[in-house]
């Protein structure tokens, strides 16, 4: 019979989600699943995602792949969909609580943060003790990806996170600035400029994703500071890996959105055919799609691949 599925992303403007949609569409065509894609207007736009879920219910979809913008607020709508017998899989960003979805296919975002944190610490060596770090976070509502990566970075860098579920409650003097970027270039540039004002001595910049890293880099460049600062990021898209190659970004944690998407479609197909739900990775409460650190300056004790390998595995 004809199985229909939905893909709901945060925006349809971040290349990450564009790729995810491409991957899902390809897989859906292959398996004969009908796929409809929805997105919010901006990162953080919860209402559009609620309306999208309702449309999927009305449409009689068998499964929904959801990249939630507001990981707490969306939970009730997800429940409605599941009550209607739909399989809901969170992609990329876990819900709160994580078991609000039938399954989660995601990067281990905490580990992604931890990898770049440890790498930065090792790269700085002794200087890590008095590093000045700026955090280019995501949105004010602190969705799970935002918290996991930010706190993961601190953990990797050796900074006490206090409440690991909350950004900004730390008191380590090395954290000089937190600002939000909405995960895009414009936000990255503005946030970086603001942080530079607070402390022009910043020498480490953590960024939530590669678009915001690109924006932050422009801000540094316009004041001639681009070579004094270590930028780390998460994503591993082809432009991002090239940026690592070019030395713009020091290291990035590569994720695999195509895998999330295609596995998601497969899971829905399987659920429609057999009623079977996907299982999480051993020992974790979600299915880990993997994460790899990409850098051309490997650091002691932190596993990584170089940009050549990174380019082979990058996604667009």
């Amino acid at each position, binding site marked *: 019979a004809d199985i229909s599925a939905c893909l709901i992303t945060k925006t349809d403007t971040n290349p990450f989600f564009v790729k995810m949609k491409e991957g899902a569409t390809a897989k859906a065509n292959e398996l004969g699943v009908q796929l409809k894609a929805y997105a919010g207007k901006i990162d953080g736009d919860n209402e559009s995602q609620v309306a999208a879920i309702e449309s999927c219910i*009305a449409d*009689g979809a068998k499964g929904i792949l959801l990249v939630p913008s507001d990981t707490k607020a969306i939970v009730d709508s997800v429940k409605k969909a599941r009550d209607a017998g739909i399989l809901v899989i969170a992609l990329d960003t876990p819900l709160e609580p994580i078991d609000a979805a039938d399954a989660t296919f995601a990067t281990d975002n905490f580990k992604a943060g931890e990898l770049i944190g440890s790498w930065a610490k090792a790269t700085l060596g002794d200087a890590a003790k008095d590093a000045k770090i700026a955090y280019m976070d995501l949105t004010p509502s602190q969705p799970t990806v935002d918290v996991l990566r930010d706190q993961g970075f601190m953990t990797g860098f050796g900074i006490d996170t206090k409440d690991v579920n909350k950004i900004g409650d730390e008191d380590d003097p090395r954290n000089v600035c937190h600002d939000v970027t909405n995960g895009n270039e414009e936000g990255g540039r503005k946030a970086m400029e603001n942080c530079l004002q607070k402390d022009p001595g910043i020498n480490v910049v953590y960024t939530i994703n590669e678009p915001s890293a690109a924006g932050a880099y422009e801000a540094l460049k316009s004041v001639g500071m681009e070579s004094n600062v270590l930028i780390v990021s998460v994503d591993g898209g082809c432009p991002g890996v090239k940026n690592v190659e070019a030395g713009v970004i020091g290291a990035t944690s590569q994720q695999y959105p195509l895998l999330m998407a295609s596995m998601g479609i497969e899971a829905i197909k399987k659920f429609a055919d057999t009623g079977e739900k996907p299982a999480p990775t051993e020992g974790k409460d979600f299915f880990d799609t993997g994460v790899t650190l990409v850098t051309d300056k490997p650091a002691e004790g932190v596993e990584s691949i170089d940009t050549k390998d990174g380019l082979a595995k990058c996604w667009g």
Partner: protein
Amino acid sequence: MSDATAAGGKQPQEFEKVLSGSDTSVANFETQSRTPLETAQHFLHSNPAAVPLIVLLLSILGFGIAVGGKFFSAFTMTLILQQVAIVGIVGAAQTLVILTAGIDLSVGAIMVLSSVVMGQFTFRYGLPAPVAILCGFAVGGLCGWLNGALVAHMKLPPFIVTLGTWQIILAANFLYSANETIRSQDIDAQAPLLKIFGETFRLGGAVFTFGVIVMVLLVAVLWYILNHTAWGRHVYAVGDDPEAAKLSGVRVKGMLVQVYVLSGLICALAGWVLIGRLGSVSPTSGQFTNIESITAVVIGGISLFGGRGSILGMIFGALIVGVFSLGLRLIGTDPQWTYLLIGLLIIVAVAIDQWIRKVAG
């Protein structure tokens, strides 16, 4: 002391005396036989909500054909109502303000702040839910009062006032809530009253939420008030020509303040309904509600210059947007096409309206 002309006192001037014989018939410019087109135009002209209603019916029909039977199901139809409930309620507030020739950019912010107050007062301070809800309404009314006072007493343009208060209220919302979302599970456990408007009941295949019911009731009551009470007529008079309204005995300042306060209270109601719709209290919601409510008002044929239009038009306008959004989603078009088409819709709806006004003269 008196000259020739003074003799004329108590007497009309010579040339005015002939007026007794003047033609007393009233010039009648109206062509006697109207063509069906003219009759239609006249009907549309005197029923401001008719154009959006017709557009609504046509778009339901159009999508019904494009999407197929599933679109006409009671479930889909009631889903549109559910999706439109928030914009419809906020649109009612916006309608009141726009009828007075104002505009309210802060509606979404008031709505969210009220919902946050309802939630946080229950959970942070442990107040009983009904009290917290009342506090939410009080905050909404207060925000409205602030807008109204600045517009009425300081005589500042509503666009500027609400551009300012929008930012102020939204920032206050984020600062106060500390961006904390209150989770569905907690509300269910401790204060289900907050979510009352999310409750559904079924009538055959149709699923209604209490939120939908409250929107319909609100619009009906406001329609009655605007058309059948003195207060309602005064809202129109204030928007039509405030100076004239003042001179002919309307307390314009008082009316303006009342309208903005009422608008704030309605936004608070929308905030309560929002909790029901989302299941949770989320301080980041409602970012686009101001634009969405203005869109509904505009497509509904209500004049941004005030004094003209029907609140029924607004609800049809909101439903048109709802039908388009859902219809296009069900067809499976890229969401960007939806925005593009809604943009077109805004312009076309207003152009048609203008055309009718012009031709009907």
